């Protein structure tokens, strides 16, 4: 059974999350500690800015609580918070299908702070690679994570969950790209030298050819220009700068319009109609709204940008409904596979029992009445027994697998155990491979339920 234990932006503030965050260099050690716990068969550790989670497969599927406690204990110990009793309310746990659903939703960015953001999938992949490298993933959890990648891919291609920009800076960058393509041959003018100007310079100024800073206080403008690799200009030169610039980010504290319609009209004449784009993130606004009406001039204020963000988020939430359907469908497919896995040990035992009985009888006969047979004849008889085993077990194996994929898998397993008097050791009702089946399992992909079973057919 799969369990998930962790904290996220939904359950814990950053002050708590950061205590549990794990960097890539110590990750192998944490994974090793988790894997050393007998309650845990497979583990993976995901640590991002917004979540710290452990995905695990419990050794004893019927006792997931033990696995949950084990994970929490290792996490608290690693974070240096002792038993972590005070932090318990910040943790959440999921077990069984709900844990699988959670993993799928995380990978598909349905549980992200910014719905549909693309980074999380890469982070899950990194965590998966780390766990694979540490050898802490097996066929069961490994298959689950692979299925999560499939879910994420389907959600991204079959829905528009990632459509639109969902931050003011990305909307501004998108707009600049929509107008100018790239900014390599363009000049960005920062009006004002405050924090907002600096933040805008970081997102917009990256690809720009020139960044110029125009501030009432020249010294402050020069300081900002120096830190971002731009040039400071005098406040009086604003008119000339408007002729030169392509993107203007206005963020001064001026109570009146700094950029007026007349000023822009004059500049546009000198620019010979070249496109000019204003991003007015100041409140009160710096750019007269009617400037937007001038040909080839576009003004977007902070409300416009936030409106774009809100619309994109609304659109993403609408798409999330479709994405949840994909998650549910993939979850049922995975559960079907997992249930099919529950009968694998029974099939192995049934096969071993049949094979050993037939071979024992053959050996007895070959040592007695058929002693005179040549080596070739003996080999032929052995081959015959192998074929007989396969043919005899074909139908029961198929029915058992079908039953395993359905709801009555446990009944079928018990019936076969009784009928063939199979050894009655621990049988996994929710279906997980044995420890020895781990090798090669983590890298497995695709949907065939045969891998890892080790069943010749």
């Amino acid at each position: 059974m799969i369990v998930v234990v962790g904290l996220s932006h939904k359950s814990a503030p950053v002050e708590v999350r950061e205590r549990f965050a794990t960097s890539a260099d110590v990750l192998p050690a944490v994974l090793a500690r988790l894997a050393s716990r007998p309650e845990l068969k497979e583990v993976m550790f995901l640590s991002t800015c917004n979540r710290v989670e452990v995905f695990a497969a419990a050794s004893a599927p019927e006792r997931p609580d033990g696995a949950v406690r084990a994970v929490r204990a290792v996490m608290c110990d690693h974070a240096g918070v002792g038993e972590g009793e005070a932090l318990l309310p910040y943790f959440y746990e999921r077990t069984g299908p709900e844990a699988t659903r959670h993993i799928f939703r995380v990978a598909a960015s349905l549980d992200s702070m910014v719905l549909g953001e693309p980074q999380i999938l890469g982070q899950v992949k990194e965590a998966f690679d780390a766990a694979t490298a540490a050898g802490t993933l097996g066929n069961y959890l490994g298959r689950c994570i692979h299925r999560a990648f499939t879910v994420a891919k389907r959600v991204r291609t079959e829905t528009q969950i990632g459509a639109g920009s969902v931050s003011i800076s990305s909307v501004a960058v998108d707009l600049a790209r929509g107008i100018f393509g790239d900014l390599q041959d363009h000049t960005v003018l920062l009006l004002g030298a405050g924090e907002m100007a600096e933040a805008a310079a970081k997102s917009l100024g990256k690809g720009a050819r020139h960044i110029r800073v125009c501030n009432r206080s020249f010294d402050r403008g020069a300081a900002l220009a120096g830190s971002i690799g731009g040039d400071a200009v005098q406040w009086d030169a604003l008119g000339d700068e408007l002729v030169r610039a392509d993107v203007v980010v206005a963020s001064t504290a001026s109570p009146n319009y700094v950029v007026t319609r007349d000023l822009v009209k004059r500049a546009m004449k000198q620019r010979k109609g070249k496109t000019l784009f204003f991003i007015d993130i100041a409140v009160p606004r710096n750019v007269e709204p009617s400037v937007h009406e001038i040909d080839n001039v576009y003004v977007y204020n902070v409300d416009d940008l936030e409106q774009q963000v809100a619309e994109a988020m609304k659109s993403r939430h609408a798409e999330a409904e479709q994405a949840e359907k994909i998650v549910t469908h993939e979850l049922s497919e995975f559960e079907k596979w997992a249930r099919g896995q529950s009968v694998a040990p029974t099939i192995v035992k049934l096969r071993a029992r049949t094979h050993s009985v037939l071979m024992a009888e053959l050996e007895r006969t070959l040592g007695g009445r058929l002693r005179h047979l040549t080596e070739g004849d003996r080999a032929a008889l052995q081959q015959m027994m192998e074929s007989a085993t396969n043919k005899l077990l074909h139908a029961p194996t198929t029915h058992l697998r079908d039953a395993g994929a359905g709801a009555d898998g446990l009944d079928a397993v018990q019936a076969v155990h009784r009928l063939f008097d199979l050894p009655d050791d621990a049988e996994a009702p929710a279906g997980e491979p044995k420890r020895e089946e781990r090798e090669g399992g983590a890298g497995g992909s695709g949907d065939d339920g045969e891998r890892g079973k080790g069943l010749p057919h």
Partner: protein
Amino acid sequence: MQIQADVSNFFVDGLFAATVMAYLAACALFVAFLGNERFASAGRLAPRLVALGAVLHAGHIVVSSLVWHVCPVEGIHFAMSVVSVLACAVYLVMRRRYHIDVVGAFVAPLALTFLLASRLVAATEPAQRYRSTILPVHVTVNLLGYALFSLAFAAAVTYLLQERRLKNKQLLGIFRRLPSLDALDRAEHRFLLAGFPLLTVGILTGTYWAHEVEAGSATDIARAVLGYATWVLFAAVLSLRAAAGWRGRRAAYGTIAGFTFAVLVLIVYWIKSASALAPVALAASLR
């Protein structure tokens, strides 16, 4: 002999049908790409289908001109067809350079329309009195000019779409799939710049040829007037852009107006061609 003719016609028809299918598929893919962000791969595949359509189209022109013994640059029958192939070719060469892949969404239907239109106009052999050494030059430069103007038109329409979304602050939907305003404006201007000298030569040779054959029918005059109007409009768009900074929206409207006049010239050709054929068709039906 009859069998050979049937085989040839079958081949020509087959190429025509294949071209139509390729253009239609390209149109459908462009629509899918522009309509929905999840069809990103459709946007990559569509220009390739335009290329396939253009190759088949060129094959159709060559084969049918051989089968029907008609020079591809004579007469309106092939003119429109050739224009669309040239437009596709220029688009395919320039689409990456100018970042205007999406302009194919206009080029493909334009090519399809011109191809179908060329089919509606029966092949006409220019009357002997119209034959002139200058005629092939006149038609060739005009065809190339039309191809470039149709691309400028497509870029202008796309520009206006994008510009309207920016002015109305509607950024969801196709905004992110259309080329940037700058790229569209630049492409439109360069296509106009390249097409304008060709149009000028076309106008000059057309005037000289008309003078030579003393053409004077109503359609000839209408065609000449519309041709001059086209030239004046494009000249105005280019001059105002250089002198008064008429870029973007105004330039786009000017380009669309100029191209509309250019298409009207073709329509007048078409009317003339159809009316010239009417007595022939009537005679054939009476026979």
